[in-house]
């Protein structure tokens, strides 16, 4: 475990999830628009700085239907990506999770897996969600391997649901339930 971080909202091992920082908007927007990062991230349209700034404005709702974090690498105290719980439906108690690692240097280091784990733990143990899901395009092998490592189950395949580089691709729906996550999390802690 690397050094502790006083900005952390959720503490992890290699990374922390910290609140979004309006000083980092340029960085966030760069990630969102980067061809390699956005390829499987469903960002078909450009995100402007002004669009992202809107996220920081108060919404007049009593409770948000999405919660976003910056992923902070503990070792070098660097913002490297975004992690969010979105489409929160409070009556059905279900939500969707999404992670992007914007800084390509940090790919292939298990960061998305850890970010996913922290999001699931937060969603189930703090937001009291019943079911959490995520959608992964079939050629995005890295991401659906992450889902499987997290104990998520592929519950459905939506045929030709996405269009990337001129081709249609299937979409995998992965999901996990609160009880299953909590018992898995306890088991993992014992080990």
């Amino acid at each position, binding site marked *: 475990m690397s050094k502790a971080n006083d900005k952390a909202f959720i503490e992890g091992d290699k990374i922390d999830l910290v609140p979004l920082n309006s000083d980092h908007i340029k960085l966030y927007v760069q990630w969102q628009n980067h061809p390699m990062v956005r390829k499987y991230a469903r960002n078909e349209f450009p995100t402007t700085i002004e669009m992202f700034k809107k996220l920081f404005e108060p*919404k*007049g*709702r*009593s*409770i948000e*239907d999405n919660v976003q974090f910056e992923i902070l690498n503990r070792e070098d105290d660097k913002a490297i990506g975004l992690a969010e719980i979105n489409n929160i439906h*409070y*009556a*059905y*108690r279900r939500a969707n999770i999404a992670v992007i690692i914007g800084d390509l240097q940090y790919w292939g280091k298990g960061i998305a897996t850890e970010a996913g784990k922290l999001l699931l733990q937060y969603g189930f143990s703090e937001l009291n969600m019943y079911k959490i899901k995520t959608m992964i395009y079939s050629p995005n092998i890295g991401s659906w391997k992450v889902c499987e490592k997290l104990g998520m189950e592929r519950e459905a395949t939506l045929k030709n649901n996405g269009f990337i580089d001129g081709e249609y691709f299937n979409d995998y729906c992965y999901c996990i339930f609160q009880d299953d996550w909590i018992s898995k999390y306890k088991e993992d802690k014992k080990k």
Partner: protein
Amino acid sequence: MSTEEQEIEPIPFIKGENINLVVNRSEWIELRCKWVNSPKNRMFLRGPLPSSIDQMKKRFESRISEGLGDWTGFILYHIKDKKPIGEVGLSRINWINGWANAYANIGEMEYWNKNIATEATQLLLKYAFEELNLNKVSGSVVAENIGSWTVAEKIGFKYEGTLKDAKYIDGKYRDEKRYGYLKRDWLKQKAEKNSLGDLL
């Protein structure tokens, strides 16, 4: 058919036996003002302060843009008499704790003591537990408001405790009784009712 705008019968959002829970309308604002300002009625309700029509309008409009809020409410519409007679709703909803506070107000006093509050609250609880998926609904009643807490107990709310001198009403501090209803008790009661239905 005349081209004049006709009074449209409100569609029940939740159907009851004697009353329906219907969606609020801007043309009922004056009526609701009358209900909350009437001395006999407001005695055991929240505020000792008057509600103007303008304030009520503002509150009504602010809820249009709110999205997912911490409040939801209905107008009680008397089926046979075809008129709005009161309000019922959930306030201070906390979606993470799965909790809300229930309130009911029969504004038209000729409908008091006719089991309207009982029916309305039961419809509201069904909505809270079976549609909104809440885990607990609470209610607080001033101790002197015997009618209301008798209704609460009849419906199956459990008494949880008394807050001493919680409200200052009509020249005196008064105790407030707190009641709670858990979803698991609601489901149990429902299962018992159903099995009774099978026997009959």
